[in-house]
């Protein structure tokens, strides 16, 4: 009878560990017993009796399991408890090390462990109706970096950026843009990168390229239309929602030297003349006068102006602890290509952790915490053949001949239909669809990827039905992981993944008006048409939404 109770309790502890996200190798008996000891749960206790106390391995934990669970662990098995159970418990924030005296060294005889409050509160809910919720909360709070702030960019006003002369867009969390080729969809995505770049004084060829922007000559970056005077600056203003008053960012961006193709662009709102340190201005003017007197440099008016407006050292080190600024500076436009995902082309993008074209996917996935991993396993349902995703950190599979080409990716997949001894595919050999899907999932799941980003042509390499399913999943993930995204597509199936009755998911049609200006219009449906007879994809294909060529 007692043995039954003991086995049953150990089994429950193993279940708990599995649900809390520990890997299979940590669902063993020693881990289960350690959890029981740390929770002070005896075979007859309910989980609601769990309490935390600081425990030393040999004195408390081993003694408890030997006494209450009729085990026979000797003091010299201490290291097994530490390595096999307590180390993963610390990694997963189930236990705390030396909570009563954090200054103790690991080798101290007083080294002790205790359940974390988060783990205790979760365990208390085991076998109750709250269990699922508690586990979800645990996983969200388990790693502080998984926390979310809920800030969203609500409005963009764009003036004089490429084809956009004057446009205002009210964004949701998950935004999809459709329109004819050349309608200006990518310019909308770029305008956000432009303001992100200029806020860190990075509006240069390199700064923009690294964010996915097509850099051009100053007179081509500014809107240029027949019979209209060209503005001399790009104006972009953004409004973020907050719990308090709306936060507004405004930028008036102009080229320091209009005649220089590679000129640095500056933000009038960031470096207004009146805001510059007078002593700094004085020293700069003195330096310029000296140069003129000594004839050491030929200085044009633009050149002088450029020099005066150069940001000082102190101005360039803008703190990005400000969440709004962080969102803008990290913003980038992802545009995948399969060769980068496979790791067979040298990394072109210096963006980390994920490159703009798909670089770095293997490293990011290998660094996922348990919470992120959980989300990723959903990927397995997208592909019938997929058994498991493997990140081979040490690249051991390469020596087994699984990567004969030049791929640097350490990502592998096992195929459930292939012979077990012969079923591992490297990123170099796998189908391109899974790499694209994994990339998007990682981008949305990870706490290291930007909070605000864009994806150009999300449909690349994906089957239409997969597009629909993926978009549904990504829309859900954007909510759960607090991401905000702007997506362009030419594939109607993408639209079928959107729920346009959900205010956070929005569809925009981008077109050029009679003068060629890019204009954006949001597509909404009347509440009374909730049972609309057609898919949105069909409506788009029929031309009913606009966003298709109408002259043929």
């Amino acid at each position, binding site marked *: 009878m007692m043995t039954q109770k003991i086995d049953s309790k150990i089994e429950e502890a193993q279940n708990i560990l599995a649900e809390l996200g520990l890997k299979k190798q940590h669902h063993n008996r020693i881990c289960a017993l350690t959890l029981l000891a740390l929770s002070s749960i005896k075979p007859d206790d309910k989980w609601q009796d769990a309490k935390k106390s600081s425990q030393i391995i040999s004195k408390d934990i081993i003694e408890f399991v030997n006494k209450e669970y009729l085990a026979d662990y000797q003091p010299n098995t201490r290291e097994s408890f530490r390595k096999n159970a307590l180390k993963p418990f610390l990694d997963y924030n189930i236990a705390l090390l030396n909570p009563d005296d954090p200054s103790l060294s690991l080798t101290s005889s007083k080294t002790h462990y205790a359940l974390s409050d988060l783990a205790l509160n979760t365990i208390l809910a085991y076998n109750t109706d709250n269990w699922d919720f508690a586990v979800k909360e645990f996983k969200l709070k388990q790693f502080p970096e998984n926390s979310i702030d809920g800030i969203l960019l609500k409005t963009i006003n764009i003036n004089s950026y490429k084809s956009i002369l004057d446009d205002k867009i009210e964004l949701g969390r998950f935004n999809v843009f459709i329109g004819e080729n050349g309608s200006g969809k990518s310019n909308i995505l770029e305008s956000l990168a432009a303001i992100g770049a200029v806020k860190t004084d990075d509006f240069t060829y390199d700064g923009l390229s690294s964010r996915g922007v097509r850099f051009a000559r100053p007179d081509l970056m500014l809107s240029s239309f027949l019979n209209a005077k060209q503005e001399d600056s790009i104006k972009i203003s953004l409004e973020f929602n907050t719990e308090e008053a709306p936060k507004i960012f405004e930028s008036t961006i102009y080229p320091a030297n209009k005649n220089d193709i590679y000129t640095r662009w500056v933000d009038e709102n960031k470096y207004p003349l009146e805001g510059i340190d007078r002593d700094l201005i004085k020293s700069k003017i003195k330096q310029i006068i000296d140069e003129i007197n000594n004839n050491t440099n030929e200085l044009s008016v633009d050149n002088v102006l450029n020099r005066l407006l150069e940001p000082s050292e102190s101005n360039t080190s803008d703190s990005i602890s400000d969440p709004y600024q962080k969102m803008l500076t990290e913003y980038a436009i992802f545009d995948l290509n399969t060769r980068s995902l496979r790791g067979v082309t040298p990394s072109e993008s210096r963006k980390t952790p994920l490159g703009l074209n798909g670089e770095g996917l293997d490293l990011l996935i290998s660094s996922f915490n348990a919470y992120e991993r959980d989300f990723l396993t959903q990927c397995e349902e997208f592909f019938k053949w997929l058994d498991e995703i493997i990140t081979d950190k040490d690249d051991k599979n390469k020596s087994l001949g699984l990567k004969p080409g030049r791929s640097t990716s350490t990502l592998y997949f096992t195929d459930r239909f292939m012979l077990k001894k012969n079923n591992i595919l490297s990123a170099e050999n796998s189908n391109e669809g899974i790499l694209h899907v994994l990339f998007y999932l990682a981008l949305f799941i990870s706490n290291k990827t930007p909070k605000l980003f864009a994806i150009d042509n999300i449909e690349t390499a994906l089957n239409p039905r997969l597009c629909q399913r993926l978009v549904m999943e990504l829309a859900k993930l954007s909510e759960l992981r607090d991401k905000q995204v702007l997506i362009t597509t030419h594939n109607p199936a993408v639209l079928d993944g959107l729920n346009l009755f959900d205010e956070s998911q929005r569809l925009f049609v981008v077109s050029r*008006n009679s003068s060629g200006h890019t204009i954006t219009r949001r597509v909404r449906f*009347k509440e009374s048409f909730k049972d609309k007879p057609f898919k949105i994809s069909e409506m788009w294909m029929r031309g009913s939404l606009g966003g298709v060529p*109408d*002259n043929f």
Partner: protein
Amino acid sequence: MIIGIISEGHSDRAVIVNILSGMTGLTNESFIALLPQYKYDATDIAGGRNEIHGGWNAVKDECNKRIFIDDFLMQDIDDENFLVIHFDTAESAQYPIGHINKDGIYCSTMREQMIILIKEWLKEDLSDKILHAIAIEETEAWMLSLNKIKNSWKSANPKRKLEFTLNYKTDKLEPSYDLYKKLSLGLKESYAVLKSNQFIIDDPSLNAFLDEIAEKVIPKLVNA
């Protein structure tokens, strides 16, 4: 404001868009071309189907089936969306409209009959939302009026007459969206300017279309 357009041909839509743009100030992005369009794929077309799904029958079919119409009306565009339904009456003899004498009230009677017919096909009175571009006998007749031809609606073949008027001698006038957009540019004017043109006022179906736009659309723009 968004205006959806169901027309027999792309070239007809070009004329309609010019009129609407001139009177309302709306530009390209405010117009959605609903019909005509490719209904069939290249495989169907190779099997003998018409490449473009348009013309009288297509517009009538659409009024009955309401695929594009409902697609359009279910979009919530601040309740200020309108739908243009265009018909050339040249082929009206095939439809259940009794004989109408070509007298002084021929045009207005024909237009009224067509509007009744459209309402029947739609099985619903959507007249608040619909702008009736009923051209008697063809949209080309409106372009003749623009080119100072009197009583263009009486012409048996307005398209031939337009060819002649515009000096299309060797090349035939091949209707297309871009060409008709250019040829009807004179209709892209304000209501006041259009109404000061006697040839246009004397074209009853064109005049009625202008009045309908002035009555239904312009007040919404003022209120917007």
